[in-house]
């Protein structure tokens, strides 16, 4: 073996493999990346996972990691490597995914992705090269630049206005997600052996499905530290290491947990989740209710959140569609999660609902006084207004052609023991007042909606019947 077989025999992607570039990395003399690459390649080789590995190249000096590693390669946007890695891991849970990142990528622009991915804890391996400087963009300050350290964007040395250097290994180890976090260095033979072992262990933990691991490598960047390689090694040891102490920061013993079944592609399963059925619903309508409109009936249901206007609207739409008509329902809410305004526009059309909005409805069901005051005047001539007379003491004056039905939705529902069925009382009233559909059509929609809560069906049937009775009572 002349090298870890995980390196390509020739670096075709490095300037098309021309000349020396076919076998040389693009890294500067003394750079730490080459060693980290080598230890990663050896780990992949020794674990026998070359075919399963996906290496995510970041933005930074190691952006060209994919020039060298003969594995599946993907190149991520700046800082996004860990979430790209997750996308690969979840696509193929058998794959072994490595997110290889520098300090700008991982600890600055990608901090949110770094922390969230670590906390998620899915088994990927993150190799973090910390050389305390931005390399590719030319020696700017990194989040890990030391206090007092000069860079092109901290020319008189990092000071308190730049904040303190970020200790990523400690930060990541403080999270619940990771199983293994270690900081290593490359400056002498002893540290290199530890670095190699740490990378191998991090990869092995992923192979075993045990969880997320994070290896921070203190690396040398002689070019931008403006030192020779030997002095840079010394600088890492003497200046970086006291700020970034080496060693294992977290090492949990856990059972393998990451097991995922192959996704299901059974049509029946999807249909059942969607509630789709091949059963034809029974039809009761003899034809489109043309006494209300020739082709398209416009309704509005309005109340406060919790009145059940949306549910009632949905039931009308479902009833219409079960009869073979077209229908739409558009909800509209105020910004409050509870108790705000809640309006629903409903259309029922013989063929196709053209305009689903109901700015001037033929039928208004109002659950409270403000709704009645707001929308009553918009109802078309000859239309219907049904409102909750339990809560509206005085109805506003409406066009005399409009048929008005005061029905105590709330009173009836409360008498039945459940105030929430007031919307079903309203549906009964709608049926009796307008004859939009036969009773059985609406009852069918109500029963279907309650098919998982059968015990509630009798109460709802009773509420519906009382709604009808109240309107019939008004007629007398």
């Amino acid at each position, binding site marked *: 073996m002349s090298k*870890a077989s995980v390196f390509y025999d020739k670096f075709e992607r490095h300037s098309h493999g021309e000349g020396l570039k076919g076998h040389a990395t693009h890294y500067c003399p003394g750079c730490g990346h080459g060693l980290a690459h080598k230890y990663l390649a050896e780990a992949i080789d020794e674990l026998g996972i070359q075919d399963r590995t996906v290496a995510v190249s970041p933005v930074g000096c190691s*952006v060209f990691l994919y020039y060298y590693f003969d594995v*599946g390669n993907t190149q991520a946007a700046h800082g996004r490597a860990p*979430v790209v890695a997750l996308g690969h891991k979840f*696509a193929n849970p058998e794959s072994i995914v490595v997110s290889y990142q520098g300090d700008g990528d991982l600890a600055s622009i990608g901090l*949110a992705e770094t922390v969230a991915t670590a906390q998620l804890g899915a088994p990927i391996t993150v190799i973090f090269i910390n050389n305390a400087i931005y390399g590719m963009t030319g020696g700017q300050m990194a989040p890990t630049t030391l206090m007092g350290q000069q860079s092109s964007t901290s020319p008189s040395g990092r000071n308190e206005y730049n904040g303190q250097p970020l200790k990523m290994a400690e930060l990541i180890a403080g999270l619940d997600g990771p199983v293994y976090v270690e900081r290593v260095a490359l400056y002498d033979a002893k540290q290199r052996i530890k670095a190699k072992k740490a990378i191998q262990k991090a990869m092995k933990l992923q192979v075993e499905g045990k969880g997320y691991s994070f290896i921070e490598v203190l690396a040398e960047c002689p070019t931008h530290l403006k030192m020779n390689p030997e002095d840079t090694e010394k600088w890492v040891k003497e200046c970086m290491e006291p700020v970034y102490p080496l060693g294992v920061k977290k090492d949990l013993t856990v059972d393998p947990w990451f097991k995922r079944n192959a996704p299901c592609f059974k049509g029946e399963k999807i249909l059942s989740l969607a509630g789709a059925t091949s059963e034809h619903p029974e039809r009761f309508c003899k034809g489109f209710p043309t006494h209300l409109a020739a082709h398209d009936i416009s309704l509005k249901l309005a109340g406060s959140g919790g009145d059940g206007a949306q549910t009632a609207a949905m039931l009308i739409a479902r009833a219409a569609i079960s009869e073979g008509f*077209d229908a739409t329902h558009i909800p509209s809410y105020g910004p409050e999660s509870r108790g705000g305004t809640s309006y629903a526009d409903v259309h029922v059309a013989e063929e196709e609902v053209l*305009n689903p909005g109901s700015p001037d409805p033929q039928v208004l069901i109002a659950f409270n006084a403000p709704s009645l005051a707001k929308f009553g005047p918009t109802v078309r001539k000859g239309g219907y207004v049904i409102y909750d007379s339990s809560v509206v003491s005085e109805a506003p004056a409406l066009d005399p052609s409009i048929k008005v039905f005061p029905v105590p939705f709330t009173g009836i529902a409360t008498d039945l023991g459940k105030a929430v069925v007031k919307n079903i009382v309203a549906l009964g009233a709608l049926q009796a007042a307008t004859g939009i559909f036969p009773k059985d059509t609406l009852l069918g929609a109500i029963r279907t909606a309650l098919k998982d809560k059968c015990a509630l069906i009798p109460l709802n049937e009773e509420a519906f019947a009382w709604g009808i009775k109240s309107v019939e009572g008004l007629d007398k």
Partner: protein
Amino acid sequence: MALKERPKPFLLPEYCKGCGRCLDACAKDCITLSDQINPLTGLVPVALDLANCNACGLCMDACPEPYGLRPAHEGEIQDFELEDPAKLFGVKPSDAPEPVDIPNEVLPLPRTEPLVIKGTYASALGALLAGCRHVYGYPITPSTEGAELMAKFLPKLDGTFIQAVSEVATVNMMYGTAGAGLPTMTFTSSPGFSLMLEGVSYMIGAELPGVFVNVMRGGPGLGNIAPEQADIKLACHGLGHGNTRALVLAPSTPQEMLDLTMLAFELSFKYRNPVILLGDGYLGQMTGKVQLPETMVKPGIPKWAVYGDAMHRKNVITSIFLTESDLEAHNVHLNAKYEAMQVEARAESFLCDDAEVVLIACNTPARTAKGAVQELRHQGIKAGLFRPITLWPFPVEDLKAAIQGAQRLVVVEASAGQLEDELRLALSKAGVREFPEIESVRRMGGVLPQQSEIMTRVLGRKEVLA
């Protein structure tokens, strides 16, 4: 078995950058910095004197170059001379196999009664039926119900839904799963879509499929959660940096939310490019009749994927082309793809054959406009509706046919003229110089144009003309 003799190190000086890490790794002082610049590299390599070498191997562990210090082959040390590196290391860059396409399977679905569901749900079901089992997202009104439904259904299908830390993370999870060759999607709304654009540009650059359902809401900034159509410019002309294009589909009914989501997956893999589905807040929330299709898809794996298995080992997903000529060639390739996408232009022309007044609208305003067309026809006005279903490419050939007899064009939209801009650009590019003056019915800020406003515009103008 006799102990095999450990190999001593070997180095081709042109692969040594002279970092000197091997110097202190060697206890026998076999390695020194050479005093001569290597003429091939301009660097100063190390020099080996292996008289005292005990083949401990530490120098090789210290060398950062894959082809730097390495164990010597038999006879190599004695016979060293500069060789052609290609011959030295072989010409084959990898023994990885040549990948082949694993095609999708189309599976029959039993015929079912129509569902009554909201637009976002219809889109989510469309995605499931298109074979998508990997959905990533970040909650944002008014698109969240789509993600919520996925979060409920996907675990039951052994699929993956992950609520990402942000939209930025969302799109990059999609980048990963799409890179693995699988269908993936997200639901978002305008501010979230803005955040995803960086990733969309990367996906286009790296030629990755993915479906973005953007349920547009009012802007700019935080705006509000009511429906608007003010992301047309983003989807058609502003997909992040660089030379980016994507097919933009504009459904107008819950049924189309399902149908066009399924189409979006198909087109996104056909062209290896993201597809944007632009809905509006009304459409996302609107419940309507949705008929499920007769078939569904079990996805395969395309040959270009990085799936993380032996067959796809040779692949790389990237949008970097460092050499200018390479990047230009890539852009030429992308342009050819964008050109090929022109055949996907789709539109609906409603009563346009004899129309003198042609309304032009998409999404929910198109439905309002359809209502207006019917009402105008009742009043004896020959009105029609032209509804682009793809906003990019704009269906200009269909438009030309639809407005042949038109005396008036009225663009109805919930934006400050973004649809009209698309229309004008398409007509201009198609060389159509003669067309009626374009009138507009525009609302903004989450207010949709009303049928009455369209009527007023059309009838008001007519009275003026009369």
